[in-house]
């Protein structure tokens, strides 16, 4: 909670506009709520004993016929929607964060190798990246989860779903890290301090990790913020399409998928509240990410 309180001050000193500060607080607040879901959620949606079908599809507490026990209403199985959303946000953020972590690790490693050694290694890594980038994220992610589904039999797919999703998202995102790190590494490698390190005979691994990596880290952090928003969106899309998290352990995307089946019968809250939470979370992270990019590394601005 200490970081939460000091963040606005930090952002103010960096000269961030009010909108960015509000977005940063909102994003941190949502992440904190999601991480503390098991403490603050009124019910435990993973506990089968805590919900009953008799409470299914109750409207939000503030609507007519609302039940004061369920602030945002209940879903088709009688689960408290607010609790399901808090736990769902935790799943979404964990998978998004995991994907960013995997993509960053893979991309930074390959980018360092490509930039440091150049030549054939460089050409091979960057060509693979080019091919991957020429396909849209969603198609690659669907392909990976499709193959994973075919390899693991039915029940195991649900168990492995988070890991499959992380891999499916990271397979596209590592390329951006690799490209940025490679370019920065090439610049650093030509500088005197790296040449000196080479001359005194330090092993390449040490030069890359201890000397070059700290200098490219700021770009990596900036990319990671924007990629986190993108990863959360991709996860939600996959879960919405039914190839992501199973309904027994839903993410925000799965909740929207469940809600989508009830939209036609006028039961709007099951789809709308998780969708709203998702959009606000991603929007807040995007606003902060956009500002960080412009502030620290305008070179990363791509025409989109």
């Amino acid at each position: 909670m200490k970081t939460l309180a000091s963040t606005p001050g930090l952002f103010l000193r960096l000269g961030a506009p009010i909108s960015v500060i509000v977005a940063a607080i909102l994003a941190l607040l949502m992440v904190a709520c999601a991480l503390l879901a098991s403490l603050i959620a009124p019910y435990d949606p993973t506990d089968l004993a805590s919900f009953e079908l008799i409470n299914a599809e109750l409207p939000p507490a503030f609507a007519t016929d609302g039940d004061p026990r369920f602030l945002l209403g209940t879903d088709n199985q009688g689960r408290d929607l607010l609790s399901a959303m808090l736990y769902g946000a935790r799943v979404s953020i964990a998978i998004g964060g995991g994907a960013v972590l995997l993509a960053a690790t893979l991309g930074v490693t390959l980018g360092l190798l490509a930039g440091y050694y150049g030549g054939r290694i460089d050409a091979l890594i960057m060509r693979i990246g080019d091919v991957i980038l020429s396909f849209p994220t969603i198609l690659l992610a669907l392909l990976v989860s499709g193959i994973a589904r075919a390899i693991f039999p039915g029940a195991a797919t649900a168990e492995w779903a988070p890991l499959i999703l992380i891999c499916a998202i990271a397979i596209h995102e590592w390329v951006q890290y690799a490209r940025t790190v490679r370019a920065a590494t090439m610049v650093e490698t030509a500088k005197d301090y790296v040449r000196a390190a080479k001359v005194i005979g330090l092993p390449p691994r040490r030069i890359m990790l201890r000397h070059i990596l700290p200098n490219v880290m700021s770009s990596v952090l900036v990319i990671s913020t924007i990629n986190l928003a993108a990863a959360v969106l991709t996860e939600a899309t996959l879960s919405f399409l039914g190839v992501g998290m199973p309904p027994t352990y839903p993410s925000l995307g799965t909740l929207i998928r469940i809600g989508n089946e009830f939209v036609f019968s006028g039961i709007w809250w099951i789809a709308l509240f998780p969708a709203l939470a998702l959009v606000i979370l991603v929007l807040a992270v995007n606003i902060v990410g956009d500002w960080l990019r412009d502030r620290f590394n305008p070179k990363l601005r791509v025409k989109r």
Partner: protein
Amino acid sequence: MLKVLISRLGQAALVMLVVSAVSFVMFRYVGDPVATLSRENASVEEKAALRRSLGLDQPLVVQYGRFLGRTLSGDLGISYRNQRPVTQLIAERLPATLELVLVATILSLSLGIPLGVLCALKPHGVAARLVQALSLIGISTPTFVTGIVLILVFAVSLGWLPSFGRGQVVDLGWWSTGFLTVSGLKSLLLPGITLALYQLTLIMRLVRAEMIDVLSSDYIRFARARGLPTRYIHFRLALRNALMPVITVTGLQIGSLIAFAIVTETVFQWPGMGLLFIQAVSFVDIPVMAAYLLFVGLLFVLINAVVDILYAVVDPRLRARSA
């Protein structure tokens, strides 16, 4: 020039070879076709005979060669789920997806270009700021949420437009179109808008960036100094040059839109290729998955190669760089 052409086509062929290898591996190693095809208590000899007749006892390279041969002659296998040739399934679904993508492209261009120009001409105006803020919301809103909200408002609450399917279609030979009936056009509207919004932000930002670039160039300043009418400078001189990259990006994005239509088609139960694919993924219908992958891969590679080659034709500087 010939060198560019050959190297670009070679690269495209290489990518297609990789894509086809991935689909082959999916076919071959994901699940055992003999187990799926033979009867329940088949003897070892029977299974071996089936294996021989399917050519599965041949070396891997020979099998891959045969797979390539069959694929090139248009035989992509039989869907496990529908028990119909995959080529036929895709051909049936193709018009629905292409019509949706066409409508989305037209909508996003006709809205994105004026909005982009507006933002570039008056970058500090209220409208421009509003559009910018909306575009940030646009990137942060997933397509399926847009679709659900549109359905809630226009189909469920107001009841103006249908929320699923293509409505009445007219068959023109093998092409079924929704453009010729009222219900077909009405059905196209909501999914078209949903898919267009994904594209709209991109086009708007691009037009804005290009327009700002062009407006600060020398020939525009010269035109201003000559006292030409502002309208003429903005729309005749500047916009024309700003639109060149927009046309390229729109072309390149068509492949992306076809892939992205998977989401829109799921929300609106639109009977296109994307819905076919997503159903194949959830039923592990491998021939359909492999065929869709091959088809969309081919489309991508073709569009990219054609654009690169056209660039080389138009701009001689690129020839030297890539050769």
